[in-house]
């Protein structure tokens, strides 16, 4: 079996402790949360941190709570916590859609929201979910906190806005009336990374889409939010024609590549198809339908 290279290991006892350790060790150190992205990379010796800071004891980062006009999710919330959350099910069913098809149940017992976002894999699903929901990321350092919107969080494939002396501690999602959301993913097999995923969220008032967003995964070097899609949704009346049009806009605004999961043409088609399906479900949900 493949095994990691030698490392040093320490358990952080608090966020402050974790950040202090990280600042001290610099770029040779990595936080380890669920470990399901990092450890396989270490076994392949594609990631070779000298120092691992285990943040699994940071109870202060395990929460999903409503806080005024936001839902706040601690970065150590595990996939399974997101899947089991009544609060998320009520406000953002897109999480349930996505979490049912992220990796497998055993991996979901360990993998975390923060770890997923920080891995910044272009095919990663929660980034697309958070993008659709217009979430923002709370990044903490010894200096304090800064809040970065999703579209600024990923700065490239496998790269985020989080610096060596910082830590992603929370994700915030705005709570607005008339919301509905949904997620669609095509995978070659259960547990596989997405061929393409599309998330959609809409906020509807008096039959008009006040705001709407699309988040995609596995369609290019970065998980994009499709601004032209958001523009087309804003102020529109929901209809099959609209979903179709926005699907086409999404397809025209991403650049998937041919790989083992599929051809670029197929992926482009999927963006259109899955965006349309996600929007249809999101709108239905915003109107209180159980779909």
């Amino acid at each position, binding site marked *: *079996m493949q095994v*990691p290279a030698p490392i040093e*290991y320490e358990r952080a006892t608090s966020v402050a402790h974790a950040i202090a350790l990280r600042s001290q060790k610099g770029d040779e150190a990595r936080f380890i949360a669920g470990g*399901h992205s990092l450890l*396989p990379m270490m076994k392949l010796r594609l990631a070779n941190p000298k120092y691992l800071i*285990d943040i699994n004891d940071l109870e202060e980062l395990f929460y999903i709570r409503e806080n005024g006009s936001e839902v706040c999710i601690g970065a150590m919330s595990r996939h399974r916590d997101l899947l089991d959350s009544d609060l998320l099910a009520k406000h953002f069913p897109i999480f349930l859609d996505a979490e049912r098809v992220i990796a497998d149940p055993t*991996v979901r017992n*360990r993998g975390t929201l923060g770890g997923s976002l920080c891995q910044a894999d272009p095919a990663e699903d929660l980034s697309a979910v958070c993008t659709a929901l217009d979430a923002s990321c709370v990044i903490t350092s010894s200096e304090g906190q800064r809040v970065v919107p999703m579209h600024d969080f990923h700065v490239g494939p496998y790269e985020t806005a989080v610096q060596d002396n910082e830590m992603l501690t929370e994700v915030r999602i705005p709570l607005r009336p008339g919301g509905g959301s949904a997620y669609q993913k095509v995978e070659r097999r259960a547990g596989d990374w997405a061929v393409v995923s599309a998330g959609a969220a809409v906020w509807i008032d008096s039959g008009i889409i006040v705001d709407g967003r699309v988040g995609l995964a596995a369609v290019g070097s970065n998980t994009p939010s499709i601004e032209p899609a958001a523009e087309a949704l804003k102020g529109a009346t929901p209809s099959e024609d609209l979903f179709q049009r926005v699907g086409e806009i999404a397809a025209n605004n991403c650049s998937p590549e041919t790989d083992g999961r599929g051809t670029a043409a197929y992926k482009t088609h999927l963006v259109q198809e899955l965006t349309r399906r996600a929007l249809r479900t999101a709108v239905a949900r915003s109107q209180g339908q159980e779909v």
Partner: protein
Amino acid sequence: MQVNMTVNGAEVNEEIEPRHLLVHFIRDQLGLTGTHWGCDTSNCGTCVVLIDGEPVKSCTQLAAMAGGHEVTTVEGLEVDGVLDPIQEGFMQCHGLQCGFCTPGMMLTARALLNSNPNPTEEVIREAISGQICRCTGYSTIVRSIQWAADHETNVSLRSAS
């Protein structure tokens, strides 16, 4: 470094390298070879153990990370000479052939029944979907778990709760 944890109800206190994977710690250091490994990428699930009652792929955890936690391996399923109904179910329903994925499958099944005593076929299939069996085609594994659900006793809950 030192690591302390509970394995199948017994305290263990061992010297390890920080990079040691939990699966190797369990197999090579504790000699509990019922836990297997079948891939390097967290895909096959033959290495599943329970950590605090939850199925976890032990090839993708450092032994150090399990410190302070309760680990249950296949060797912990039989309590005082009484088989877990899951074990009995796998025998009764031909839920195993080569036996390599079986320990992981049984532990996931145990955790499932602890949280959901009467799972549907769909729920069972979902629960074991992170684990690969190359021999059985899964139907008999599903039946084995259903058999166990039908024969659940209080004894079985001890081993993993």
